[in-house]
């Protein structure tokens, strides 16, 4: 057991890859076997990752389950893993969502099943690796690798303009991450110049002294990489396309996990590496975040395509998370982290439901639906819960995170928060209107006369998410108590730097004028 716990992160990261390897040896034609095996393996992976949760010590901000081996000695690159309260839940979310995504694609994916399940498992490895890496080179490697399976998932199993979307997705994110690479390497070299050691160890790089002007440049560079991923207005246009054309499983993973990397990157890399610059640029980012919130919500209102609507709603929700993170109070950051999980659950569920509708009617246009409640009461009820969770109804998960973000940001950034809060009105408008047009009223489309309710497999697919919505909504302490020490530490660092920054400014006489 102790050895298991010692190397648990590596086991969790590479278990899916090994599973994928195993699947390589299975006959292409045995689709049922492939699907079942992949699903069971991903479930096993989730169960293994639960050990992290069980053995996680909730009273410290230190990294846990640390593993460290030399990798490329010449550059000081190490295989350095470790998690804290934030990455813990993101890892759990990843393993859960991969399982659910695989489970959801039994009917949706009809061709190239083998390739699909293998790609999904490989993708899982990369995502987990990126969440657990504490070495920036290792992180960057996983981060870039992640794009490849996603590119194929959108490009092969997508619909409509799938290739356009896949290419747009990869070019957008690649452009961002290359600029980011530039920033990371500059920090690496700066650290070398200051200490004479080559190291990619994040914890050591935290102590790099970066001159303020350079910090701002680097921050902007790294910001671009993460902002595209989040995606923050105006870097968001790849998201609706990618979401719309991707298969259900792809959309689910994209929304639940991939988007979180942007926020996670800010939390783990950009802000701690360049605290002063992030403090200076906070107003700019908050403006973008608030624009994202309102813009995403307004544009959602007029969407005609279900998936596109949910995608724009993601833009809006992610804006909240950015707002909370950059308000940089313990409460708002707590809320942000919690909301990352919540958004993964709620939006993932929404995409699952949209996928179910699409499987039945082969259309995603809202106008083609209507009156489905009569035919599919279970679907309607569960879909409704997912919608309400996304609306941020109290008692469900979305509310807690959203409220923490807003209440945490309110004091310092009152105006931004007021604008952001108005987003809750628009959210209700577009989601409820969508739900009404899809599920209520009379059936207008003859194709929907034989609309089937959810099958047992589908219910099992969404049930964990629905239960989690209630659980987090009613008892968020399970998450918050583990997240909080990390977040408090994070905020303390920022506060410390803020203090130092103000001293410098005072010395330079910027405030004297």
């Amino acid at each position, binding site marked *: 057991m102790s050895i298991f716990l010692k190397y648990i992160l590596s086991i969790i990261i590479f278990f899916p890859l090994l599973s994928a390897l195993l699947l390589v040896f299975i006959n292409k034609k045995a689709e049922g076997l492939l699907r079942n095996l992949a699903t069971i393996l991903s479930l096993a992976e989730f169960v293994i990752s639960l050990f992290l949760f069980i053995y996680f010590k909730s009273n410290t901000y230190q990294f846990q389950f640390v593993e460290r081996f030399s990798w490329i000695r010449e550059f000081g690159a190490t295989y350095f893993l470790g998690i804290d309260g934030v990455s813990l839940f993101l890892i759990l979310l990843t393993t859960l969502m991969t399982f659910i995504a695989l489970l959801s694609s039994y009917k949706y994916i009809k061709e190239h099943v083998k390739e699909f399940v293998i790609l999904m498992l490989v993708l899982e490895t990369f995502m987990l690796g990126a969440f657990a890496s504490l070495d920036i080179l290792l992180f960057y490697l996983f981060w870039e690798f992640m794009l490849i399976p996603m590119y194929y998932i959108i490009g092969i199993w997508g619909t409509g303009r799938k290739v356009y979307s896949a290419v747009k997705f990869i070019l957008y994110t690649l452009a961002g991450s290359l600029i980011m690479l530039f920033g990371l390497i500059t920090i690496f070299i700066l650290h070398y110049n200051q200490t004479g050691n080559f190291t990619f160890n994040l914890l050591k790089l935290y102590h790099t002294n970066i001159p303020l002007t350079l910090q701002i440049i680097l921050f902007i560079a790294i910001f671009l990489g993460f902002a595209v991923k989040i995606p923050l207005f105006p870097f968001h246009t790849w998201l609706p396309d990618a979401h719309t054309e991707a298969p259900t499983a792809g959309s689910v993973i994209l929304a639940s996990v991939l988007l979180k990397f942007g926020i996670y990157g800010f939390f783990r890399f950009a802000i701690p590496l360049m605290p002063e610059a992030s403090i200076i640029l906070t107003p700019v980012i908050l403006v973008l975040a608030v624009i994202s919130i309102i813009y995403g919500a307004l544009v959602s209102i007029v969407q005609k395509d279900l998936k596109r609507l949910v995608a724009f709603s993601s833009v809006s929700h992610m804006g909240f998370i950015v707002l909370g993170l950059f308000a940089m109070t313990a409460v708002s950051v707590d809320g942000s982290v919690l909301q990352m999980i919540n958004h993964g659950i709620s939006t993932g569920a929404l995409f699952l439901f949209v996928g179910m509708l699409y499987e039945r009617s082969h259309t995603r246009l809202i106008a083609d639906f209507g009156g489905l409640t009569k035919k599919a009461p279970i679907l309607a009820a569960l879909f409704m819960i997912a919608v309400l969770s996304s609306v941020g109804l109290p008692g469900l998960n979305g509310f807690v995170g959203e409220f923490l973000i807003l209440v945490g940001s309110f004091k310092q950034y009152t105006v931004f928060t007021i604008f952001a809060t108005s987003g809750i*009105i628009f959210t209700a408008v577009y989601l409820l209107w969508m739900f009404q047009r899809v599920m209520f009223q009379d059936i207008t489309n003859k194709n929907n006369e034989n609309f089937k309710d959810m099958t047992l497999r589908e219910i099992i697919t969404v049930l964990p998410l629905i239960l989690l919505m209630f659980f987090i909504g009613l008892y968020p302490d399970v998450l918050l108590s583990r997240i909080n020490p990390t977040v408090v530490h994070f905020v303390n660092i920022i506060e410390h730097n803020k203090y130092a920054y103000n001293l410098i400014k005072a010395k330079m006489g910027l405030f004297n004028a």
Partner: protein
Amino acid sequence: MNSKDLIVWLIPFFPLLGAILWGVFGKYFKNYSGYLGSIFIIISFILSVIIFFIVAYGHGFTSILYQWIDASYFKVNVSTTIDRLSVVMLVMVTGISALVHIYSIGYMKDDKGFARYFSYLNLFVFSMIMLIMANNFLLLYVFWEAVGLCSYVLIGFWYEKKSAVDAGKKAFIVNRIGDFGFALGVMLIFITIGTLNYSTVFSDIHTLPPYLITTIALLLLAGAVGKSAQFPLYVWLPDAMEGPTPVSALIHAATMVTAGVYLIARCHIIFSYSPDASNVVLIIGGVTAFIGAFSALTQFDIKRIIAYSTISQIGYMFMAVGIGSYAAGMFHLLSHAIFKGLLFLTAGSVMHGMSGELDLRKMGGLYSKMKITAITFIVGGLALSGIPPFSGFFSKDAILADLFNKGDYLFWIIGVLVAFMTAFYIFRLIFNVFFGESHVDKNLHVHESPKIMTIPLIILACLAGIFGFIGLPPFNHSIFYKFINKDFANSFNFAPAVNNYPWYLLSAISVIAGLGGIYIAYVFYIKKSFDLEKLKSKFKPIYDLSYNKLYVDEIYDFVIVNPMKNFAIFLWRIVDILVIDGAVNGIAQYVSITSSKVRKLQNGMLMSYIVTLTVGVIALLAYYFVR
């Protein structure tokens, strides 16, 4: 957890249990969900009464269930506060709910969504109970939204009807606009005081600068205005009548819509520190009372008339709490809950007998066919009109007397005017529906409702008859005032009474106004001494204004909804697709054009490659020299 706590937590537990049971396993319960649901609520009612006596003969207390959120310095418990204010509300809510549940068994019989209906209804009762019992602002906000959700699903209960779903959505969204303010208020409280617990907030609020207190009060008021359908956010309530009638009775008359008044009463300390905010409450109440009554004058849909009447009556309550007469406001809240619940339920009974007909032009002379309904309806109408000895008389007069005695003559005049209009429109309704010649479709078999529906009506009618006596004038010396005002003892800062006219003088005026309204309705609709059409054309602008509800919906559409929609389309079509995507695709196109030009350099001719190579070598060497 001692027995007191246990009782407190059992009150919301039963409705919640019901909601989950019928919601998840509704298929298996079928009609039992109605009976069992009613029994659950009755249990809650009994428990509430027990708690009522515990508090009445003892003290209020708080009870913590568990810690809900613990994010660094933001800590919130799930906990209750039980005091005089909340027990009174509890008894009222569970009592009316129990009656409505029983009534619904008959009303919703044969409906496909029977179990679903009771699930929603139980969920609503749970939420409402928690809203009342909450002991911090966040929990209040949570259930504030939760009752909004229940209202949403219940208004849109018959989801095939577009109008019903639209109305539900409208209700939810308009409420959200109010809640937007409410949420900001809650946040402001937290960042200024550092906690959301009632007791701390109320004891520390005086340390804040006045402008902050006023801001907080106004933001909270925004929530109250949305939930209680006050001007300018009242537009959702008339549409909300698309829901089943018992729902209208419970949610949109008796309980949920009065939550705004409850909120202000609950936060009376905040409001009493901010005279400006209280004045705003008063003005909103006055304006709403008038608009509601004015719009009710010309409607033909019986439920809509009662809905407008609700708006206008809540306006009264707002006026009361706006001048600091919290006890009077609460008294009117309770008596209004009874008689308005009664009116809605009887209207439902009429609908039931008329197979869903709502237009009063197609009714008439129903008295003989449904006697119980008619008599209970008239009792409700008399209570609404403020005719003694029915409850409305006592509660309305308590408010009017306070208005006059505190010197707010303008609002007193409005109050009397509204009382007059109220009596007119409700008796216009009564005369048109139950008396006069029949316009009922000949094929329609009009019948009295079953006993399970009429018994709650009778109970409510009796209550409407006797309830008022607990507030026997002079109000300041009545049982109710003495009981509830202990909670409002620290509401000060309000102007003391400038006049001390005896209550009977003022009452006489308002009773005369009420009787006048009834008489005019009688003249118009029974004796038909005037040509109504002529009158209508003579006052056409005013009539149209009233009939079209002051065109508020249209104005909102024109000023807010449509511009917003167009703006959204503009953002999507222009900003998103044209500008941003255009820029992105433009860059991509620029790159591909450039590269299609550049790739011509690679022409496959060996010679040109070699020449290029040589030039490169020369350039490198040249660089060596230049360096």
